């Protein structure tokens, strides 16, 4: 099976939201409320547990050469956002149940019959795509229309897109198509056009990538996303240091405490302190285990003390 991908060309998007509707209908995604955001024509606001396609409406100061817009008018650009299906997917790595898998199409897929809603994928996605659906309890995101791809059809959003802004196809072909399109845009004077695909980062490139104009950060496309697994090494090293410190400090303080108590207590049976203080009779023994061993064969030097120590241990336990 060829690895497939999405190329979303924002320069062709007209903000019709047909992709949002087609996705909701095909995937039976529930209603997730309706708010007037006041942020341009965008009342969807973000990808989430019940939004797998989200059209952004970017309004910003006009820049010279931004085709069609006069300087008296803000520029208005659209871009349909979707799960990136990362090369190194944070959600997939984080999933403790193995519910999230990579499919034969190279996409990242949540198996709904296995997800138990632990929520760890939610904080592991560097793009805020996946989320837990309230009421349902499981995590949801774009399926890359796994069922449609299985049947040889293209994803619903790509099929419903009226302008060819959402292009579906083999990933290699799309990457070449994006390069050609970028060259064409540049030739047409759109010098601010660029391809957003974080190949140089730990995310390792994405299977859904974008052609945008101007500063990609205005589309909330992070310039330097990071897959959280790169933090594991330093974090586990720190955990190792912490564990060693806890173990070392505990062993040391109790060992020292024993020695100190042994030092201040008289050699004889210290009846008054027996409950709280360590048995004084441990003085001189490296470890309790050794004490009971040596009790059998007592060196002639200090027989009385050692025998009592072994006896006392048996009674106190």
């Amino acid at each position, binding site marked *: 099976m060829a690895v497939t991908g999405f190329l979303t060309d924002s320069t062709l998007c007209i*903000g019709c939201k047909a992709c949002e509707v087609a996705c909701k209908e*095909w995937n039976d995604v529930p209603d997730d409320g309706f708010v007037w955001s*006041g*942020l341009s024509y965008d009342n969807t606001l*973000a990808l*989430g547990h019940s939004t797998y396609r989200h059209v952004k409406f*970017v*309004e*910003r100061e006009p820049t010279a050469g931004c085709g069609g*817009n006069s300087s*008296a008018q*803000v520029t208005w650009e659209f871009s349909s956002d979707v799960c990136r299906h990362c090369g190194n997917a*944070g959600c997939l790595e*984080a999933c*403790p*149940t193995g*519910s999230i898998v990579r499919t034969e199409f190279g996409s990242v897929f949540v198996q709904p019959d296995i*997800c*138990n809603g*632990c*929520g*760890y994928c939610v*904080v592991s996605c*560097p793009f*805020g795509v996946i989320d*837990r*659906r309230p009421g349902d*309890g499981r995590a949801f995101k774009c399926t890359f229309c796994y*069922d449609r791809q299985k049947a040889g059809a293209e994803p619903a959003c790509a099929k*419903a*897109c*009226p302008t060819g802004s959402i292009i579906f196809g083999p990933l290699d072909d799309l990457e070449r198509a994006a390069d050609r399109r970028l060259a064409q845009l540049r030739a047409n004077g759109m010098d601010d056009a660029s391809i957003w695909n974080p190949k140089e980062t730990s995310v390792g490139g994405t299977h859904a990538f974008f052609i945008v104009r101007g500063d990609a*950060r205005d589309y*909330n496309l*992070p310039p330097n996303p*990071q897959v*959280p697994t790169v*933090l*594991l090494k330093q*974090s*586990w*090293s*720190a955990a190792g*240091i*912490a*564990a060693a*410190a*806890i*173990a070392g400090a*505990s*062993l040391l303080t*109790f060992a*020292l*405490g024993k020695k100190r108590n042994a030092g201040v207590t008289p050699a004889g049976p210290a009846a008054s302190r027996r*409950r*709280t203080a*360590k048995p004084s009779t441990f003085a001189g023994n490296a*470890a*309790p285990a050794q004490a009971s061993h040596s009790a059998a064969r007592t060196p002639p030097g200090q027989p009385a003390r050692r025998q009592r120590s072994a006896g006392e241990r048996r009674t*106190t336990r």
Partner: protein
Amino acid sequence: MKTPDQFSEKRLEQLREQAALGRVDAKGIRPSGSPMPATPSYYGLPIVKPPVWTWEVPLYFFAGGAAGASSVIAIAAQLAGASPSLVRDARWIAAIGAAASGPLLILDLGRPERFLNMLRVFKPQSAMSVGAWTLSVFGTTTAGAVIAEMLGMKRIGDASALAAALSGLVMSTYTGVLLGATAIPVWAAHAKTLPIHFGASALASATAILTLRGHGEQALNALALAAAAFETYTGIEIESDRSIDSEPLRLGVTGTTTRIGGFFSGPLPLVLRLIGIRSKRARRAAAASALLGSLITRVAWIEAGKASAADPRPHLQGSQEKE
């Protein structure tokens, strides 16, 4: 899972035709010349999603951490031949903490009835998976230690307690990795410090519970002193961190919570423990303060994570600033 048929494909065609007909004559809704956001971002909307975890998770961090450290104290005390009542109490605290941890984690799941799916696979690259397995081992061995002792099987009890201590070391520190290795800026920025911070907090709460149980060993006091000293240092480090990523630890409600948690975990028990070398009352006060501090600190970190997720700035920093 659906299969595309002629009706579904016709519907998609229909959507495409309808969408192409739509026409809007406006050009955005922002009046020309109106102020634009100074920093680049999509209307300042969040980039990452906030954690969905509720009160169970910080409480689990607290209980599991205290139980983990307690199991280590139990072994250390036993090896040094400390009072058997201390060893027994430490083992019981570990067992009770572990027994509480399981239900807390299960309650937090979106589908609690599927909690066993956690044990379908073992994934070392997922701190959540490592944690689920560790808790399984820790819960079994801590329970084994106290049950075997009650049944008079001392050897099995001791072996179980040793295994509990080894998994307990992971229990008291892995939660720092769990938060650290994520996309939440404030957590990721502390990936290196969180495990040590949480470990110290776990040690502080374990010694605190034992102190409140009436154990006055100087070794316990020394351990608590060390933990409080480290927490004081952590507090200073947080206060002096001026990065955007760490803002939720200093500003707003989460900043205040962090500070309160830090005060009760660091300086206050530190001073009280120093007095507590001679005074039993001061020791008990220090223990109460450390317990409260540990709990508030765990809540503060989760809440700081939620606040951090709402801020797109850390993710939109230029490529030069981040590794």
